[in-house]
């Protein structure tokens, strides 16, 4: 770390987000506006002197020796975590690592890997692994009028309410892993602000041509599915179980295989349409 500290750093920023203090420093001036776009939504400047995690980005300079590949290098504390000739790739790695670190280290919130929308004043959670189609389903629900909360994390507080994590939706092009980011507003939707009680948890995977016929899950089974999508359950199992317990008090759980998102999205929203509308946003 001392070696890194001795390098010349052009600028840096201290960030406070979801109870976590993190820092970013870069070797080239003028990059902070670009980096601030990658930070978790709702971040604020931190005044703390010591950071829980410090990212150091060494940006390759023009004019280095011909024939030598210019590498941009990213460190998290003293560990080199990314190295590439494309700066965008290294910045994407910064975003991934920072978001995951915050999700794992947040003392205030419990992070579940799930898409989240608000509907009729309640939250609908779509937990699932990568490439399970969460973002596609969230996008379809937004088209039908739902409020955007997240396509990545359900953020749960101590009272069991779900907070927004409205990072831009990462929409994948067919058969590639490359994502293009779209804000909810760009897709014609609005992002939620108010924490919501949980209304429904929908566990589904995509299969082309499948018909959406979900089966109900018990509260215990649903809680187990949420546990299996908790970021910090291995490090803080007791804390995670307590939060899940509070979260699922009055939720509906269903599980099934879905085909195209338009069919299942409408059906899922209908689950809550006849439900409690008192907690309007």
């Amino acid at each position, binding site marked *: 770390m001392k070696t890194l500290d001795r390098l010349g750093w052009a600028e840096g920023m201290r960030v406070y987000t979801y109870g976590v203090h993190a820092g970013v420093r870069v070797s080239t001036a003028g990059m902070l506006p670009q980096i601030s776009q990658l930070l978790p939504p709702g971040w604020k400047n931190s005044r703390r002197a010591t950071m829980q995690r410090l990212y150091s980005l060494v940006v390759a300079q023009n004019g280095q020796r011909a024939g030598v590949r210019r590498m941009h290098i990213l460190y998290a504390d003293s560990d080199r975590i990314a190295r590439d000739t494309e700066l965008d790739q290294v910045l994407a790695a910064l975003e991934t690592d920072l978001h995951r670190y915050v999700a794992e280290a947040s003392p205030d919130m419990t992070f579940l890997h799930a898409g989240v929308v608000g509907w009729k004043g309640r939250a609908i959670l779509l937990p699932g692994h*990568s490439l399970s189609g969460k973002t596609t389903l969230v996008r379809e629900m937004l088209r039908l009028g739902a409020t955007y909360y997240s396509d990545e994390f359900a953020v749960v507080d101590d009272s069991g309410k779900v907070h927004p994590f409205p990072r831009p939706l990462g929409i994948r092009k067919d058969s590639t*892993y490359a994502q293009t980011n779209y804000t909810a507003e760009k897709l014609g939707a609005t992002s939620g602000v108010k924490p919501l009680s949980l209304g429904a948890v929908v566990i589904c995977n995509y299969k082309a041509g499948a018909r959406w016929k979900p089966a109900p899950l018990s509260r215990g089974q649903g809680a187990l599915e949420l546990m299996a999508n908790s*970021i910090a359950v291995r490090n803080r199992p007791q804390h995670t179980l307590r939060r899940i317990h509070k979260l*699922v008090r009055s939720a509906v759980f269903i599980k099934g295989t879905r085909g195209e998102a338009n069919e299942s999205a409408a059906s899922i929203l209908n689950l809550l349409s006849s439900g409690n509308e008192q907690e309007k946003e």
Partner: protein
Amino acid sequence: MKEGEYPRARLDCLRREFGDEVLVYDRERNVGHCLNATAAAAWKHCDGKKSAPELAKLLTQQLSTPVSESVVLLAIEELSQARLLVESEKPVRRTSRREAIRAIGVAGAIALPLVTSLVAPTPARAASCLPKQSPCVSSAQCCSGNCNVNSGKCK
């Protein structure tokens, strides 16, 4: 009664009740289990001192419905498979799901004991990540937590 002869629940697991069900987290193996009402009731009474007939009697009282020894044996089997019982030196008498259903009959009023298990993910696996062989520049991007810097692909 001989010590180790009868099933004993592990006490080192975390547990939370969800109505009649119990969610159990095994910190040693990082596995979560959901025990339905019958399995949960059986697990609670497995103290290493009660035989299957005694457990059946207790469950009958607790669940207010007749619980046969076959159901208890099936619960022990399910709990044992999930490693929620202390391993005993002597093999515990077991039964299969099929045998239990046959013994209870289709009109049995009680839900058969059921333990559902899911592995708790690592942080890398729990968040969005890239599968094997997809392009990467950082191990944080890969589900495996391992990006091969030379090939630029997730291991």
